[in-house]
């Protein structure tokens, strides 16, 4: 049974207290979490080394400006963290990072992972409009009661994996009715247990309430079905796909913000993907007309194919799409289907091999 640490403060303040404790006592040398940038109001991740700056952090602010899994890959790509750091991130970001580490794009070493039972994040569009603050009371009320939070990313409303798998410490938020008065931290690993030694708080033992988790999961599942119906992608046939992607402007921003898209040069931007003039001449001869955006559908299909085993459905792609394409629903549906076939949940376990690097001689005999 895991250890539980309770701090006599509301969840965000309690978590900040933990971060301050870790930094001040040299247990970590840096903290990576959300922070308000100066007086401008923009919220961004920051690597903080000065304990005084913990005051300006907002570790539980419901916004994902970037997928932190992707950023952690950037920070630890060339070498593992040379100093111990604590990172506060959402379950899908953590899973995305684990996937990237499996793909040798980063290292878990020297990082303390702090995550939470996640109520979801608001779309970037709301940060642009500047009205997240006014939604916060509603957000925390719904989270505390284990309800779906209105106006969050659709990917979040449809997310079943809101409990982190490999976090050293999990902040209990969903259905935690006392979270405004007390911070409940599950110490899931030995590292999580030992690093908090010396902090003032109440220690006990306990498991997360699995019944509640299942209840929330079934609500999210029902919401997922409903939202999938709304975007009319139930069958995801070639007609729906063609229609849905016909708005694409070919900017490929979905791949740039995607933690699973880690290729240094995307195939579609590579020199090999550039057409010779003769290609246009041939197509023109044959068809009489060429849609200059025709490669965009090919791009999306190949991208889906490439990321489907590692997609953690964070929803970043949909948030940055200038054409409002419901990419979250398409990625989610494709990811689920492929992951089910391989009995694989991306980022659940670092020891579990990637499906495409695992050879099983007797696999898919029916298809072959």
């Amino acid at each position, binding site marked *: 049974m895991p250890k539980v640490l309770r701090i006599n403060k509301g969840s965000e303040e309690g978590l900040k207290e933990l971060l301050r404790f870790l930094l001040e006592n040299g247990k970590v*040398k*840096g903290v990576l979490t959300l*922070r308000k*940038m*100066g007086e*401008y109001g*923009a919220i*961004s*991740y*920051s*690597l*903080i*080394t*000065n304990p005084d*700056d913990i005051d300006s952090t907002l570790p539980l602010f419901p916004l994902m*400006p*970037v997928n*932190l899994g992707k*950023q952690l890959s*950037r*920070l*630890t790509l*060339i*070498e*593992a*963290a*040379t*100093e111990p750091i604590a990172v506060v991130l959402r379950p899908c970001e953590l899973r995305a990072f684990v996937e990237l580490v499996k793909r040798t794009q980063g290292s878990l070493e020297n990082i303390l992972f702090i995550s939470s039972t996640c109520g979801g994040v608001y779309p*970037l569009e709301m*940060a*642009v409009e500047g009205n997240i603050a006014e939604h916060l009371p509603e957000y925390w009320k719904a989270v505390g009661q284990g309800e779906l939070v209105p106006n969050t990313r659709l990917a979040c409303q449809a997310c079943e994996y809101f409990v982190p798998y490999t976090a050293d410490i999990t902040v209990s938020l969903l259905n935690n009715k006392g979270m405004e008065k007390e911070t409940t931290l599950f110490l899931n690993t030995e590292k999580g247990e030992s690093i908090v030694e010396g902090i003032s708080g109440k220690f006990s033992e306990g498991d997360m309430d699995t019944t509640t988790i299942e209840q929330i999961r079934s609500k999210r599942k029902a919401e997922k079905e409903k939202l999938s119906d709304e975007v009319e992608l139930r069958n995801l046939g070639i007609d729906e796909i*063609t229609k849905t992607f*016909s*708005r694409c*402007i070919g*900017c*490929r*921003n979905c791949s*740039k*913000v995607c933690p699973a898209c880690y290729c*240094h040069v995307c195939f579609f931007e590579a*020199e090999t993907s*550039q*057409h*010779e*003039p003769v290609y*246009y*001449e041939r197509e*023109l*001869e044959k068809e*009489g*007309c*060429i849609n*200059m*955006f025709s490669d965009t559908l090919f791009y999306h299909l190949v991208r889906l194919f490439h990321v489907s085993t590692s997609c953690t459905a964070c929803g970043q792609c949909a*948030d*940055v799409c*200038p*054409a*409002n394409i419901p990419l979250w629903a398409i990625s989610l549906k494709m990811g689920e289907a492929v992951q089910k076939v391989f009995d694989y949940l991306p980022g659940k376990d670092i020891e579990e091999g990637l499906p495409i690097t695992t050879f099983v001689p007797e696999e898919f005999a029916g298809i072959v």
Partner: protein
Amino acid sequence: MTTTRKGALLPAEGSVQKGIIDFAKQALKQGAFDAVLIPSRVPAGDSFAYFLVRNEAVLEGASPLSPIMPVQGARVISSITRRGKGNNRIAAIMRPCEARATIELAKLGQVDLENITIITMDCPGVIPLSDYFDDAGKGDKVFEDASQNWNSAPMRPVCRICDKFSSAGGEDLHIGTLGTNSGSILLIPHSSKGESILNKLGISLKEDISGWADKVNKLTEERKRERDQANDALRADIEGIDRLVEAFSACINCHNCMRVCPICYCRQCNFDSDKMKFTFEDYFTRAEARGRLMVPTDTLLFHIGRMLHMSLSCVSCGMCEDACPMAIPVAQIFAVVGDRNQEAFDYVPGRSMDEPLPLTTFDEEEFLEVEQSYAGVSSQQEGQNA
């Protein structure tokens, strides 16, 4: 910038678009071109794309004045001709800013213009992508009403202050529509290529264009004033490093502004390259120096770097702003910087193929005043140090 004072008036049967399409069809039919590059509505109906068309019947549904600019046309021409001019003679019907970007790309070796005839038209602007994709039907209506009355209010912010909405001079053929009351279009050739096409089609230049030119000049002056005012107002918000940091503070470093920019043609942006990936120790040292480090890192450096690289060729098309997920007024900021930089070199991007890029032109006596003031500052500092 008109090189001739005569044009040709063609009937437009009720709409400017129809007039342009009819002209393109006629040109294709008579073999003036092998294909026409033109925006058209996608089959799903809720967006537009560039189509390379040989089949005349397909041209019927084209939208040379599409309500949005989903992609900058210069990028499309670059993708067709970057690897060679090919055998097709193509008429590219595009907006003036797209034509100007195309000419810049030709100077940068990313476009081969030999088989391309650039045809532009007076441009009422385009509405922002986000507005259009919220409700395409409404977007169509808003654009139609606004463009007929030359009302720029619903257009992209940089379209509202665009003073190069008409002929910039670098195109082969310009189509004047301002003040022609939808009943006709005015063809004005700007190059021998443009002239020979009209010759081939048996279209003679009989029409005096001064009435149209006066209207263009009047609106140009109006827009120039508005542009200066807008630039001045925005400059107050972005001048100095602190304000610049603030202006870009919401940036998520996705680099989408760069990827949709017609001028940013580098196959691998410096800021996406290995040169900009550092060791953990490096990031950590930077964090320690100030107590914190924003992640993603180097966002402002990227914008300043991009500004330095492309502002002399920036045509103020507004793609960057439309593609920014954080609604940062990138295009407006770049208009402030671009205008000043271009003015310093007396350079108008895309005005003429004959004007070389300022960065490829060496002038020994250039900007002495900048050197002088710098020399003054450093000698002052030396004095203080001593």
